[in-house]
């Protein structure tokens, strides 16, 4: 790529990079390069996955060797450029180097297997030329000019890929249903309504490689017989929407969208629909209602969308990650994809590592990895000084798994057997400072808020469950509460139309199953061992560490802290409202909750 003898700088320019300050770094790089002092040029890319070191820049020399630097600031830019020009390496900032890819934090990437993320961080997502030079649109051209729709469906079926939005339904089978459905007009919908808190892989793919999704849609549309399609994307993802707009416009210019695409007799159009903020719209029938301009409420199935979907016509809905894998499958063959993974879960899965993990970011791993490999080999384990307690998978529909289940395989069936779900790919790591009861309460408050209200068990049941959890966290729990939660959970699961209600109790059930002792601590001993639930903790100052600087006393809103200057301070537990402001203010970390 740097064939012109110049050094190429690629800045990670996705939402996470921008949030970490990549825009200021970009400005600084541009103004330094404009001086003409350096024989280098700048390009942007989507998220490289190293969210934990953002902003990051990859420096590729004329010899093709590259180094990814992290933690950049505008001030560090000139120092970096000087070093690059002088052929030096600034070791402290290195994230990964191509000549020693496993060193340092480089194994974050080496331990991954990237199919969906094949281009993310490598190409400029706003340039269709870069996508094409990476082999882009070859698969769609091949599909439309030399393959029959049934052949494509067979190939996708052979790959074994299952819907990556969470449900895990085999994609080839789903396409087959839509292909066979009768209708004068069929629709394809790309579900980009990524609503799970803690999941950002769809956003990263749309920002980093929008053409992969569009190419997947072109192939899917042709396979099922849909000439019209929609991308239903969250309005909260402005950058993804912008890059999709740019990509779609470029496709029209190149003749990849519109009439007679790739010179075939096939027409295909994509329209973008912005979501308006409703978690339930991730559910297929609710999503369809929302595209039709209605309140996004699910309806009973059958009829399934494959027969009666958007505007009553046959409709096929696939998730972003599924569609992004399709061009790779068609280009490389279904068998090659099926060669990765386990017997019933093929290919790879992208996870978003976040929470108390050392390296948070995007991790695409082969199915069949253990959770331990994902969290420890890729994610680098838990942040310093703390112990792994749980991993939360699948967001509000998923569950919390303890350390004893870390050897569970990343496999739809293996994970479902634990009570959690594969879900869309959020993986939040919890350590000893995370209260599992509070976490369950958090997810229930989310689903309770997002319940559309159509089914009574979901609408009222989640409310009752939330009330019980809130009182346990407030130190007013009763021993019978656990059984009450379990009864309510069973009723909600049985009596809800869609997956929102059907899975809403999972975070509670898995925490009761694996962390019952924490519930008992809250209910029977009135203690929150993680030090989270305000009603159940006492804040104390460790006298041997306190320097008496007075910062805590100054910030305390109720004047509960007292002490002589430069002498250890103390907290009056009767006055303290446990707001924990002092905890975050103390420079010596002398204050603790117990």
């Amino acid at each position, binding site marked *: 790529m740097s064939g012109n003898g110049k050094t190429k700088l690629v800045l990670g320019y996705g*939402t*996470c990079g*921008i*949030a*970490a300050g990549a825009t200021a770094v970009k400005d600084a790089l541009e103004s330094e390069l404009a001086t003409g002092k350096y024989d280098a040029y700048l390009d942007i890319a989507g998220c490289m996955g190293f*969210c*934990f070191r*953002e902003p990051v820049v990859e420096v590729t020399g004329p010899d093709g060797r590259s180094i990814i630097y992290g933690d950049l600031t505008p001030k560090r830019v000139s120092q970096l450029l000087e070093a690059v020009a002088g052929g030096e390496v600034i070791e402290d900032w290195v994230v990964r180097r191509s000549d020693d890819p496993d060193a340092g934090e480089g194994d974050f990437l080496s331990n991954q297997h990237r199919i969906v993320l094949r281009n993310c961080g490598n190409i400029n997502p706003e340039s269709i030329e870069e996508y094409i030079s990476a082999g882009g649109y070859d698969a769609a051209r091949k599909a439309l000019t030399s393959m029959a729709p049934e052949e494509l469906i067979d190939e996708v079926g052979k790959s074994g890929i299952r819907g990556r939005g969470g449900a895990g339904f085999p994609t080839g089978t789903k396409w087959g249903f839509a292909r066979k459905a009768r209708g004068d007009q069929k629709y394809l919908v790309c579900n980009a309504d*990524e*609503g*799970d*808190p*803690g*999941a*950002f892989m769809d*956003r*990263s793919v749309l920002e980093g490689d929008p053409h992969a999704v569009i190419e997947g849609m072109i192939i899917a549309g042709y396979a099922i017989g849909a000439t019209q399609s929609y991308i239903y994307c969250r*309005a*909260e*993802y402005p950058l993804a929407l912008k890059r999709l707009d740019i990509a779609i416009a470029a496709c029209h210019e190149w003749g990849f969208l519109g009439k007679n695409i790739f010179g075939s007799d096939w027409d295909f159009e994509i329209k973008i*629909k*912005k*979501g*308006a*903020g*409703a*978690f339930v719209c991730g559910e297929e029938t609710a999503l369809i209602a*929302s*595209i*039709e*301009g*209605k*309140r*996004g409420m699910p309806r009973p199935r059958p009829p399934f969308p494959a027969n009666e979907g958007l*505007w009553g016509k046959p409709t096929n809905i696939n998730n972003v990650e599924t569609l992004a894998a399709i061009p790779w499958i068609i280009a490389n063959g279904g068998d090659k994809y099926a060669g990765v993974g386990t017997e019933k879960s093929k290919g790879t899965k992208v996870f*978003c590592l*976040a*929470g*108390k993990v050392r390296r*948070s*970011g995007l991790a695409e791993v082969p199915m069949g990895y253990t959770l331990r490999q994902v969290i420890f080999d890729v994610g680098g384990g838990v942040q310093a000084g703390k112990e792994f307690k749980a991993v*939360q998978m699948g*967001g509000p529909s998923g569950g919390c798994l303890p350390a004893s289940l870390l050897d569970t395989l990343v496999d739809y069936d293996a994970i479902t057997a634990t009570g959690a779900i594969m879900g869309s790919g*959020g993986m*939040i790591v*919890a350590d000893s400072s*995370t209260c599992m009861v509070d*976490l369950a309460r*958090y*997810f229930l408050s*989310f689903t309770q808020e997002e319940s*559309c209200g159509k089914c009574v068990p979901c609408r009222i049941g989640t409310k009752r469950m939330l009330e019980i959890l809130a009182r346990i966290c407030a130190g007013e729990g009763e021993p019978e509460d656990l059984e009450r939660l379990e009864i309510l959970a069973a009723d909600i699961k049985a009596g809800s139309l869609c997956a929102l209600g059907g899975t809403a109790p999972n975070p509670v059930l898995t925490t009761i199953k694996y962390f019952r002792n924490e519930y008992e601590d809250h209910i029977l001993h009135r203690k929150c061992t993680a030090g989270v639930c305000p009603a159940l903790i006492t804040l104390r100052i460790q006298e041997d560490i306190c320097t008496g600087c007075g910062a805590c006393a100054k*910030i305390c*809103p109720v004047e509960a802290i007292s002490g002589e200057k430069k002498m250890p301070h103390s907290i009056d537990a009767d006055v303290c409202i446990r*707001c*924990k*402001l002092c905890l*975050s*203010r103390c420079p010596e970390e002398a204050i603790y909750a117990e």
Partner: protein
Amino acid sequence: MNDAACECKQRFADPDDLAPLEVILERYGGEKGALIPLLQDVQDAYGYLHEKVMRALAKGAGYQLSQVYGVATFYTQFRLEPIGEHLVRVCHGTACHVAGAELISEEISNFLGIKDGQTTPDMKFTLESVMCVGACSLSPIMIVDEDTHGKLKPANVRKVIKRYQGNSGETEE
């Protein structure tokens, strides 16, 4: 305070002025199922969905008012009240939650004297809790207008808010 009010008028159309609505209605013509994008554009133009504007939209686009109101109240993006000059959104995604987002919200609430979803009486700040914005590695996060502030601590959020207190945005007076 007058200045702040002026500022608002510059940013958004007055609900008594239906000209911007007419332009939006024209844009969508009779497009099937366009109610959500219509409301999104109206909110962009007016800052929020005033009853008068919703009534006119229903009439102009051929919907029942109940349909319009039903959709406007179903989706969290739509607001029925005006917002302040600065919109403070505190992320309450899972990663932010385990990193202490509740303490961040509480501290801002105390500082500004408003609860989640409310606007300060001087129309300077609106405080909102939002679900995951997808920048989990920087948790806990808040977004003020377009700026993301990550790795927050309850003890330093006042300082961040104060930066927006001084000036009234990028524009002069």
